[in-house]
C-alpha cells in the first residue's frame, strides 16, 4: 500500500563522498519517523562515549509521515546527533519548507557519516546525491551561503547551511534554513565537523497518502479546529497568529516570570519596547507561514539599522526577545534585531548565545571576567554585538565562551554559585524555573539540557495550574515529555499539540501510512524513545548530579511582581525523586530492568555505564 513514507533513507559517507539508499527496516518503522527514526538510528549505531565532533558522530536529518502532506502545522524536520554542547543525545527542529522538500525528494531522511576531506556542499535531487566544492563560501554567513547555493542549483532548492560559527565548531552553532533554525544543542558544529557547509534538496516526487479520502477528512477537521481556536481572543496560538510568538511577553512579565538581567529579576520595564506588539507597531510587518500552516506565526519585519542601512529579518521570536532582550537589559528593538541577525549570519542559537552573554556581563560586573578592547556591559550595543562576533569568530574570550556557558563557568568562576543559566551546558530557554516549578523539573530532566519543548509552559503561565507549587508536577512533566516525544515522531509543531485532541495523531498516522496504533501505544512509544535517550546519556556518563538547576534558581527573584519567589533545594529534590519514581527509574535516575522490559527495549540496558 503506498503511503506517505518512502521507506528509504540516504546514507551519505562524507569521507568517501559517496551515498547509498537504505531500506527502512521493519523494526525502525515501528518508530514512525522524525525523532523516532533519528533516536533509534543514533542509539543503534553511535557509541554514547564518542567525541561529538569526531568522524564517529552521525548527523541524522529526518521527516515524518505527515511532512509534505496537506496536514496543517507539520512543516518541521528533525536533526538527531550527539550534541557537542551538552554531550547528550540531541534532537532539534526547524520549520519552514525544508521538511516538505526532503519528503518530495523521495526519502524519509539522511544520515551523514564520517568527515569530508574538503569543505563541501551537498545537493540531493530526488534521492540522487552529488558533492560540490564549498571553497567560495568558506567563512561566509548563512544568508550568503543560501544565496550561493540557490544561484548554483536553482532558486527552487530548499537548503540548510552553517555559518562561520559552525565551521569553527562553536558549541552553540545551529543549522539554518531560510531564517528557520535548528537552534539548540550545536548541530551546526556537527555539520561543521563533517566539513559540510550546506545541503540543498530538490524533490519532484511529491507525497501521497495511504487512505486519501480519510486523510482529507482529517485535514478538513483539523483546519476547522485550528481556525476556530486561532479566532479566540485569549488563545495563545491565536495571539501568535496575530502578532507572532512575542505576543505573550506582557503576560509573562505580569506573572513575574520574564527572565531579566541574567535571571536575577522576573520582570523587565522595557518589555513593551521589544515585544511582538512593539515590533508590529513600529516596523513594517508581514506574517509568514511555514509550509501548509494556517497559523502564520512567523513575522517578517523591515527596519533601519544604526548604520542607516535598510534591513529585514523574520523574527525575532519570543525566546530571542528574552535571550537578546530582557536577559541582557536590552530594550532597544533595533539592537535586538541587529543582534538576532548577527547570530543568524554567524549561525548560532540565539538562546544559548544570549545566556552566555548575560553570564559574561555579570562576571565582568563582578570583576571576574574582562576582555581587552571590549567593554562587557548589560544593555550596551557594542558589548552585545561585539561579544556575539567574538564568539562566532572564537576570538579572545569568545574562544572560551564558544564552548558553552557551563564550560566557561567551570573554567573561570570555580567558586561561583551557579550564575550561568544552563543545564548540561545548554542555555536556558525563556522561562524561570524558580517561578514555574514544572518548568524547573522539565529543564533539569530534559535529555538535551535546559529545554522548553517538553515543559508545561502554557498551563503554568496561563494559570491553568498553579505555577508555584511542586504538587503533581513530576507526573505532569513525565506525561508531557512522553507525549511530545510521541508527536515528534510525526514532527508535529508544538503549537498544534497545545490545542489538539491527541486522538488525532494516531488517526492521522493510519490515514497517512496505514499503520494502526492506538493512542496509548503511541504515547508509550514516546516514553520508549525517552528511555532510549536516557540510556544513551547514562552511557555518555551523565548521572543524577547532572539533572540539576544552577545555584541562581535557589535565590529569591528580585523585582516587584515576583519578589521572594524561590525554589528550595529540598523542593526540587522531592520533585526529582517523584519524577524518577513516576518514570520507573531508580533513585539515581536509571531505568529499571522491569521498565525497559515493559517498553520492549531491554536489549539496550548495556548502554548504561557501570
Amino acid at each position, binding site marked *: 500500500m503506498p503511503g506517505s513514507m518512502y521507506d528509504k533513507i540516504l546514507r551519505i559517507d562524507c569521507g568517501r563522498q559517496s551515498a547509498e539508499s537504505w531500506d527502512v527496516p521493519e523494526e525502525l518503522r515501528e518508530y514512525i519517523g522524525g525523532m523516532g527514526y533519528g533516536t533509534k538510528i543514533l542509539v543503534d549505531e553511535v557509541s554514547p562515549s564518542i567525541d561529538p565532533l569526531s568522524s564517529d558522530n552521525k548527523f541524522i536529518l529526518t521527516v515524518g509521515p505527515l511532512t*509534505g*502532506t*496537506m496536514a*496543517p502545522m507539520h512543516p518541521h524536520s528533525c536533526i538527531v546527533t550527539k550534541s557537542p554542547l551538552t554531550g547528550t543525545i540531541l534532537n532539534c527542529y526547524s520549520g519552514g*519548507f525544508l521538511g*516538505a522538500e526532503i519528503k*518530495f525528494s523521495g526519502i524519509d531522511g539522511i544520515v551523514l557519516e564520517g568527515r569530508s576531506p574538503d569543505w563541501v556542499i551537498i545537493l540531493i535531487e530526488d534521492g540522487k546525491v552529488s558533492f560540490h566544492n564549498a571553497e567560495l563560501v568558506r567563512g561566509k554567513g548563512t544568508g550568503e551561503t543560501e544565496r550561493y547555493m540557490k544561484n548554483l542549483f536553482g532558486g*527552487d532548492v530548499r537548503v540548510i547551511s552553517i555559518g562561520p560559527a559552525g565551521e569553527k565548531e562553536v558549541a552553540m552553532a545551529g543549522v539554518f534554513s531560510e531564517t528557520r533554525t535548528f537552534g539548540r544543542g550545536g548541530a551546526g558544529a556537527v555539520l561543521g565537523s563533517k566539513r559540510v557547509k550546506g545541503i540543498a534538496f530538490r524533490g*519532484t516526487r*511529491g*507525497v*501521497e497518502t495511504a487512505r*486519501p479520502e480519510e486523510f482529507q477528512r482529517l485535514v478538513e477537521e483539523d*483546519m476547522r479546529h485550528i*481556525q476556530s481556536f486561532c479566532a479566540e481572543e485569549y488563545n495563545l496560538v491565536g495571539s501568535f497568529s496575530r502578532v507572532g510568538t512575542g505576543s505573550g511577553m506582557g503576560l509573562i512579565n505580569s506573572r513575574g516570570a520574564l527572565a531579566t538581567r541574567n535571571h536575577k529579576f522576573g520582570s523587565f520595564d522595557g518589555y513593551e519596547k521589544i515585544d511582538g506588539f512593539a515590533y508590529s507597531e513600529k516596523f513594517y510587518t*508581514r*506574517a*509568514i*507561514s*511555514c*509550509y*501548509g*500552516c*494556517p497559523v*502564520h506565526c512567523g513575522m*517578517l519585519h*523591515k527596519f533601519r539599522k544604526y548604520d542607516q542601512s535598510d534591513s*529585514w529579518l*523574520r523574527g525575532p521570536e519570543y525566546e530571542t526577545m528574552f535571550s537578546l532582550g530582557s536577559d541582557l537589559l536590552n530594550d532597544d528593538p533595533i539592537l535586538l534585531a541587529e543582534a538576532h541577525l548577527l547570530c543568524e549570519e554567524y549561525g548560532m542559537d540565539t538562546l544559548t548565545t544570549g545566556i552566555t552573554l548575560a553570564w559574561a556581563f555579570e562576571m565582568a560586573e563582578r570583576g571576574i571576567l574582562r576582555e581587552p578592547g571590549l567593554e562587557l556591559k548589560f544593555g550596551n550595543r557594542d558589548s552585545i554585538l561585539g561579544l556575539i562576533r567574538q564568539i562566532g569568530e572564537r576570538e579572545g574570550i569568545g574562544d572560551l565562551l564558544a564552548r558553552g556557558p557551563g564550560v566557561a563557568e567551570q573554567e573561570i568562576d570555580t567558586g561561583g554559585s551557579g550564575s550561568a543559566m544552563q543545564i548540561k551546558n545548554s542555555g536556558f530557554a525563556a522561562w524561570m524555573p524558580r517561578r514555574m516549578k514544572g518548568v524547573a523539573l522539565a529543564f533539569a530532566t530534559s535529555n538535551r539540557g535546559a529545554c522548553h519543548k517538553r515543559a508545561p509552559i502554557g498551563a503554568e503561565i496561563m494559570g491553568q495550574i498553579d505555577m508555584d507549587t511542586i504538587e503533581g508536577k513530576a507526573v505532569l512533566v513525565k506525561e508531557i515529555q512522553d507525549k511530545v516525544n510521541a508527536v515528534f515522531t510525526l514532527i508535529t509543531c508544538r503549537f498544534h499539540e497545545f490545542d489538539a485532541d491527541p486522538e488525532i495523531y494516531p488517526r492521522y498516522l493510519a490515514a497517512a501510512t496505514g499503520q494502526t496504533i492506538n493512542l496509548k501505544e503511541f504515547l508509550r512509544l514516546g516514553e520508549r524513545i525517552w528511555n532510549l535517550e536516557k540510556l544513551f546519556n547514562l552511557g555518555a556518563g551523565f548521572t543524577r548530579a547532572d539533572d540539576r538547576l544552577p545555584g541562581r534558581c535557589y535565590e529569591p527573584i528580585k523585582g516587584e511582581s515576583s519578589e521572594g519567589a524561590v525554589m528550595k533545594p529540598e523542593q526540587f529534590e522531592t520533585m526529582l525523586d517523584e519524577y524518577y519514581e513516576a518514570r520507573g527509574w531508580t533513585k539515581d535516575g536509571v531505568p529499571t530492568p522491569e521498565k525497559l522490559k515493559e517498553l520492549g527495549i531491554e536489549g539496550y540496558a548495556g548502554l548504561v555505564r557501570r
Partner: protein
Amino acid sequence: MAIGFEIDPQKCTECERCMAVCSLLKFQKVLIRQASISVERNWPEIPVIRVCRFDDCEGQPCITACPVAAISKQDGIVRINREACIGCGLCVQVCPEQAIWMDGENNAYKCDFCGGDPACVKECVTGALSLKGG
C-alpha cells in the same frame, strides 16, 4: 457571473496550501511544482501569485497564440485541451501573468478553475485569494 480571482498578495503568508491542494486534486498527490497556481517568494517584499486571471486577462492572448486551437473558452473558463496541445510553448510565452507552464510530457497546463469551484480559494485562510465578485 464573471470568472476569475480577487488576489491580494499583501495578505498572502506564503503557506502554499493553494499549490498543495491544486496538485493534490490534479495528481492525487501533493506535487507543489506542478500546481496550476504559483506563489513566488520575494522576501522581504510581498510574493507574486501567478494564476490564470480568466475574465480579468485582457485579450486572453493564449487563445489566439495557440497554432492548433488547443486553447479555448468553455462555459467562460479558458482551458487547454491536452490531447490537442503540440507543446510549442507559445501560450507560455504570451501569457501576461506567466501562469501557463509546461509539464514533464511537454504539454502546456494552466488553472482550469476546478470547473467552477476552485479548491485553492477554499484553502486560503487569509483571504489573499478569493472568488471574483464573491
